[in-house]
Structures are given as structure tokens and as C-alpha cells.
């Protein structure tokens, strides 16, 4: 998954396709490994959830929902440059929310879950849910469903559509 090189993406997509062909069995294995994994192994857990997300299989919905809604410890005021465990945990939850976004294109339960996660106490999760739901709304062709999704959205979904094709801002030394 985490690779660079001329064939890296093709190999990655081939791996995903092979897993996709195994359907529920692949999902059960990934979820089982995730659940058994040492909580401190953030990279491994993030990689498992990234895989689950990119499989884009409807059967992964409940697992992604469970991961996105796993409890997070409270944030407490901390000295500068202290990283709380919640930070890498948030990346894992955000990855699961992205996965729900892929499924919400066709799945109302996933879309409703995104609307609920858009009120999460953690800003990062809240914003990822808004972004994912906004993209679903923007892609929706069915007028009725689009209207329902807009009603679910707290605020203007267009605020949360990522800009396309922009170059990153220039760093300055001042």
C-alpha cells in the first residue's frame, strides 16, 4: 500500500482487486486482524482501515461504522509539542469515515451515519464527515435523494467540497 515506483499503483490496485474478489471473507479477515491488533500499532491499524476503505465493498459498511464510532479519549490541555494518543487514533477514524463516504453514494445508512458523524465532538472527524457527505451530495443525480441528503447536512454542503486541481500554497519564511 505505502509504496512509490512505476508499478506501485498497479500492484496496489491488483492487490485490492484480489481482496475484493474474496468479498466478505477478506473483510472478516481485515476486521479480525484490526480488532486483534495492539492498539499502540497506529500505522498497522491505519493501513488495515485504509484497505477496508479502498475495497469499497458494501459489506464493509458496518465494520467502518464501528471503527468510525469507536470511543476516543478526551482531549486535555497539554504542553506544546505533546501529541495525544487521540491524534493518530483520529487518522484511523477519519480513514473509516472516508470509506463510509465511498459507500454513501448508494447506501442511505452510510449517508445517515455521515450526517451523525458531522456532529462529532472532534473537529477532524466532524470535518471529514462533512467533506465526505458533501462529495456524495455533489455527485448525486437523483433529485429526491439529493434533496434528502441536503436536508441532512448541517450548513451549506458546498463549503465542504474540496477545491479541485489547485496547486498547494507557497511556503514563506516570514
Amino acid at each position, binding site marked *: 500500500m505505502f*509504496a512509490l515506483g512505476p508499478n506501485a499503483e498497479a500492484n496496489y490496485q491488483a492487490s485490492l482487486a484480489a481482496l475484493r474478489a474474496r468479498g466478505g471473507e477478506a473483510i472478516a479477515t481485515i476486521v479480525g486482524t484490526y480488532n486483534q491488533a495492539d*492498539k499502540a500499532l497506529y500505522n498497522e491499524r491505519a493501513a488495515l482501515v*485504509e484497505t477496508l476503505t479502498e475495497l469499497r465493498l458494501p459489506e464493509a459498511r458496518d465494520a467502518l461504522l464501528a471503527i468510525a464510532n469507536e470511543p476516543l479519549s478526551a482531549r*486535555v490541555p497539554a504542553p506544546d509539542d505533546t501529541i495525544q*494518543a487521540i491524534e493518530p487514533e483520529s487518522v484511523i477514524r477519519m480513514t473509516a469515515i472516508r470509506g463510509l463516504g465511498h459507500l454513501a453514494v448508494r447506501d442511505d445508512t452510510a449517508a445517515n451515519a455521515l450526517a451523525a458523524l458531522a456532529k462529532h465532538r472532534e473537529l477532524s472527524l466532524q470535518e471529514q464527515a462533512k467533506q465526505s457527505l458533501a462529495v456524495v451530495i455533489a455527485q448525486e443525480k437523483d433529485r429526491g435523494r439529493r434533496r434528502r441528503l441536503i436536508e441532512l447536512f448541517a450548513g451549506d454542503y458546498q463549503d465542504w467540497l474540496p477545491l479541485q486541481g489547485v496547486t498547494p*500554497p*507557497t511556503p514563506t519564511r516570514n
Partner: protein
Amino acid sequence: MRTRVSRTLPLIALLTLALPTRVANADFEEECVEEGCDNEELDEMHEDYESECFEETCDVEEVRELAGNRGNINAMLNRFQNLGFRVNACHRVGACAISPGNNDTSFDTFFDGFCNQSSINRHWDDFEMSQSDWDDGFGFNEPCNRNLPLGRTFNALNLLDFFGTSKRSGSDNFLPFYYEYSAGTDELLGRCGSGCPGQCPGCNRQTFALHVNGVDDYTELYWPFFYNQNVFQRASTIVHECRHDDKGHNGGTTCGNGGSCDTTWGYNGANRYEILYLWWLSACADSVLPATTGFRNQIVTSANNQWDKFNTRPTRSDVFGSGVSNPGAPALVPPSSACPAL
């Protein structure tokens, strides 16, 4: 990580139900330190550990009881791990147990391939590293060992310089800028410490790195930097800390993150630098060597996890200027960005 399915667990569960109190087995001190234990005895000890710490939630005191004393905890967990039994890294005592985890998912395997005498010399000089900060188990004698702190730091620097060590004149691609910027401003020191690497009670916070301003500015890198961050997160931490040469955090603890807050995007502090580095990496990694979508997704997600470190949430106009569409909308690092020609 290998895990083991316990075959004797149901029997132990039945015994537990039948007996009013837990049968106290001999601890690691008695069995292994004083007498020398075999795999069967370790298997039995691990059954206790499984029962106490995975089926239930254990605290440090319970792990200490199983180990016999505090000084044996890491040795006991290492023996378990060597037999392929699962352990929780949070239960380790002290912060300086080597715990690389999966070097593929941390990206260390890939960037270790770029470690050679030339890269070692460059990083060593550019970041003013000293033997006394990187010996004693940190990897001075094995600089390309991906399991050791120095090798893992070099891997982050290998990623930073993978796209060039300075921005080409006339180029609008700023990805190479970050190596040049970081190297020009800082000295890197390896350090133990900052607690256990996980979600243990009382261990909810970790210091990955600390920038020290003084006559000679430097950045201390701590254990969670080496072992809890993957290569691109380590690289972004180095960029973040090096920005502290010029600017500290100015937002106190009142941002959503609860610390390391910068007041605004316009302050141009370490949080902005970190987001921008990740943003450029996601945009321009492909310009040198194509990256997988999985790699890019995790970079973008890590970048978008940083917006709560500003007291005022940055908007599109803060980031792109007032000419941008929908200027009051929150700024986001998009899933894919354009990279200017080299």
C-alpha cells in the same frame, strides 16, 4: 504480528468459574529469572497474561505481578513476543525498548533502500548530528538499521531529500524546499523518554519531539517519534520542529487540539509548515516516482487532521488569498492537488 489462538483457554475459564479466587501461578521472576523456564512454562504464563490483560483490562500493577517485579516486565513481554504470542506494547516499562512494529506499513522498508554512505554523510552534516547523541543503542554503529532510532530518522530525511535538497531556481515546485529549510535551521538529537507508546491509563500523552531555543537551537527526537510515527509523519515532524527555530506556538491551549496551538494561519508557524509539507508531498510525490493512492490518502488525511491546531479555523481565503471561490469556506487539503512542473 503473529497471534496465537489459545487451546487451553476454555479449560482455564472453567477452572476460574469453579474456584472462588484465581489460582496464583508462579511469576516470571521465579520461573524464568531464578530457574530458567522452557516454552511450556512461558506458554502458561502467557495464558495468565491473556486472561488478565486481553480478556479483561489490566493495569501496570497486574503486569508487574505477572512479571514478579517491574524490572522483569520488558524481558517477559519480549519472551512472549519471541514465541509469537501477542503482547500489548503499552505494557512495556520505560520508553527505550526497541519496538519497530511492521516496517512495511511504517514505510521504513522502502526508504531504508536509500540509505548509503553518501546519504548518511549528507544528513549527518546537514543536521549537525553528533555521535554522543546517537550512540548507546541509537544506531550510530548501524546507521542503516531500520529498526534503530538513527536509521528511522535517516529514513525520514531520505524522504525529505528524495525530491531534491533544494528548490530549483525558477521552479514553482516547493517540495524540495522543505529539506533545505529543515537542514538550514536545526540540529537533531536522539533521546529516550516520553512515556509508553499507546493508550494505557496514565499514558495518554507523548512528546514526539521538542525544539529547544538557545544559543544553539536544536531538536530532541523522542521514542514515539521513532516508533509511533511512519516515515512521512516523521518527516513532517522534523519540518514542524525546524520551523520552531523561527517561531514557537503562540496560541496557548485554547485550540481544539488542547495544545501546540497557533493563533491563525497567517502567523505562519509550525502547524502551517507541517500542513504545507504534507500538502506538497501529496501533490508532487508523483512527479518523481508515482505513489499509491493509499500512500497519498494517508498523507492527506494526516494533513487534514491538523486544522484543529489553530485557534481560528483557517479559511480558503486565509490559505489561497481573497480571489479564491467561496473564500469563507474552511480550507481543506484536497484528495488530489496539482503539482507545478519541476
